[in-house]
């Protein structure tokens, strides 16, 4: 399969705090040495808990943020050094869906203008042509052309997310980065939007980078999954391998912590102790060492190297050599 996106040793830090002279004195290490490839037509999910760097990774891919080091290749082109002007035409092929549907739609624009705006930037269509596209897309995402003249506040959360999805689709993107697209929605609406994303992928042969904290949702939608902790990718694997044969102790704990909606289901739960450490002072060794049950002396001293344990299954842990 064709590689559409590739990250190589990407890192990003944010300055916090200032010295007397106005120089930053500390850094948040949001994304550390992240590498993965995304192939045409697949759904690649990034999972992890809050603060693990999954959203920052999404923003780095879309070049809303520039990485400190490392390379990002999109459709064969290196995009890390591009200016925002040079990046703009690339964004036609790379659209984003956000978590908060209400916050990502301008409340003072009508739905038709919201959806047509990317066409204004990326194409030379006239107004009638644009409105044709808008009406067609509204139908595709399960709304109708009668909704076109309304404002965002007239819609429910699920409908707003459908508008957000329609807007991402206007310019026929190859890749869609969906950052927690359903976590702000009610349970019964989540299933509607997930099914919609699934159908759209088949219809337009889209590639998704799906960012989520919900492992049950990720299992449903993904082909391959990367698990992040403290800005590091600790395990990457095809879905079946990750869920049936997870290797990293963090992935195991994360999977066992998911509550299962079935009272008859009993499983052994791994309760992690303590909290996620701060990303300002990264641990010297393995990022997970402080909460890991299998922690050995070398885990505290040395960062584990990422290894391919079985085909397609990468893990960074001293247990697997």
């Amino acid at each position, binding site marked *: 399969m064709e590689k559409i996106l590739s990250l190589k040793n990407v890192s990003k830090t944010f300055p916090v705090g200032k010295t007397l002279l106005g120089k930053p004195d500390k850094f948040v290490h949001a994304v550390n040495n992240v590498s993965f490839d995304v192939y045409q037509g697949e759904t690649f999910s990034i999972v992890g808990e*809050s603060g693990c760097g999954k959203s920052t990774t999404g923003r780095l891919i879309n070049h809303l943020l520039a990485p400190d080091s490392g390379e990002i290749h999109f459709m064969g082109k290196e995009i890390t050094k591009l200016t925002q002007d040079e990046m703009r035409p690339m964004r036609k092929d790379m659209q984003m869906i956000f978590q908060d549907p209400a916050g990502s739609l301008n409340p003072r624009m009508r739905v038709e203008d919201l959806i047509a705006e990317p066409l204004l930037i990326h194409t030379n269509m006239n107004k009638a042509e644009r409105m044709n596209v808008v009406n067609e897309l509204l139908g595709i995402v399960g709304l109708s052309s009668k909704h076109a003249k309304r404002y965002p506040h007239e819609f429910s959360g699920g409908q707003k997310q459908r508008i957000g999805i329609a807007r991402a689709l206007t310019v026929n993107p190859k890749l869609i980065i969906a950052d927690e697209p359903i976590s702000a929605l009610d*349970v019964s609406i989540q299933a509607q939007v997930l*099914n919609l994303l699934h159908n759209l992928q088949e219809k337009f042969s889209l590639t998704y980078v799906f960012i989520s904290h919900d*492992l049950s949702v990720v299992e*449903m939608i993904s082909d391959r999954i990367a698990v992040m902790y403290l800005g590091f990718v600790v395990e990457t694997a095809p879905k079946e391998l990750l*869920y049936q044969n997870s290797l990293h102790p963090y992935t195991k704990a994360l999977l066992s912590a998911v*509550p299962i909606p079935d009272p008859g289901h009993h499983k052994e739960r791994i309760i992690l*102790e303590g909290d996620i450490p701060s990303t300002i002072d990264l641990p010297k060794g393995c990022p997970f060492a402080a909460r890991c049950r299998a922690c050995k002396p070398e885990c505290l001293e040395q960062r584990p190297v990422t290894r391919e344990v079985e085909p397609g299954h990468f893990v960074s842990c001293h247990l697997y050599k």
Partner: protein
Amino acid sequence: MSEKLLKVKDLRTEFFSSKKSSVVAVDEVSFELEKGEIVGLVGESGCGKSVTSLSIMQLLKDTPGRVTKGEVIFEGKNLLTASKKEILNIRGGSMSMIFQEPMSSLNPSMRIDRQMIEGICLHTSLSKAEARERAAKILTQVGIPDPQRVLKNYPHQLSGGMSQRVMIAMAMSCNPQLLIADEPTTALDVTIQAQILELMKKIQKEQGMSILLITHDLGVVAEMCSRVIVMYAGKIVEEAPVEILFGNPTHPYTQGLIASVPKLGSGVKVLPSIPGSVPDLSSMPTGCRFAPRCKYASEKCRQQEPELVAVNDKQKCRCWLKQ
């Protein structure tokens, strides 16, 4: 186990936008809670589950909301007619609450010790020093390794999981009979959620108190509760023991809700979903409130509202199909 700790009878809570116009957020809500039981109150946003808990706790004073009908009987006393003093005695004493946002429910300008001691001194005859000791002891019970340090901290110095532990410790500090937990783990990460749920189960076993767990997460319900009440658009639509609710749900809404949650390890690609969305409180459909989204809805469902009736000796359901 058969003694009733809390009885809610035909509760109706309205929110007034002016003297005459109001929306009914909770209507005809009746349920009972036995001693030592964990009951789940489940529903989507806007279904009235939080308003029900605030009505029980008498915490609607500063809102436009008012309980306009019904009874809330706690340990034999009707809280709706009780005096302010009696309520103050019960609230935080034998009945306490934990909230969804641990960060915003702690006072940011007070150290943890002052916040905890305040409650303990109010409800017991302990001195300040003794109250502090008790606070430290409870913090240890909720799994805080260094209670003396945490007592001296301000809330912003604690992580989300830590603050929720402090909230639980505070709610537990006067040995309540009833703990109302309103989405206690929704704002937390899954691994922290697992810690907190485990902790709540442990404390419940040790103290034998009852918990009313309000949540939208069916996974949490399946794990924690013995009985479940499902609410939709301000009314109870189904009530059943947890195994029966998940094994044999009778209301079409419950069926749809359970089916639409992805289950870890199920391997499905497409989920059955409930069409449409939750109705607006100010424009409730006549007849059954779920009828516009229900695939079984008939003409009768659209015109007349069904009652909540027992379908067998353990299960209640509000649906014309089951009457």
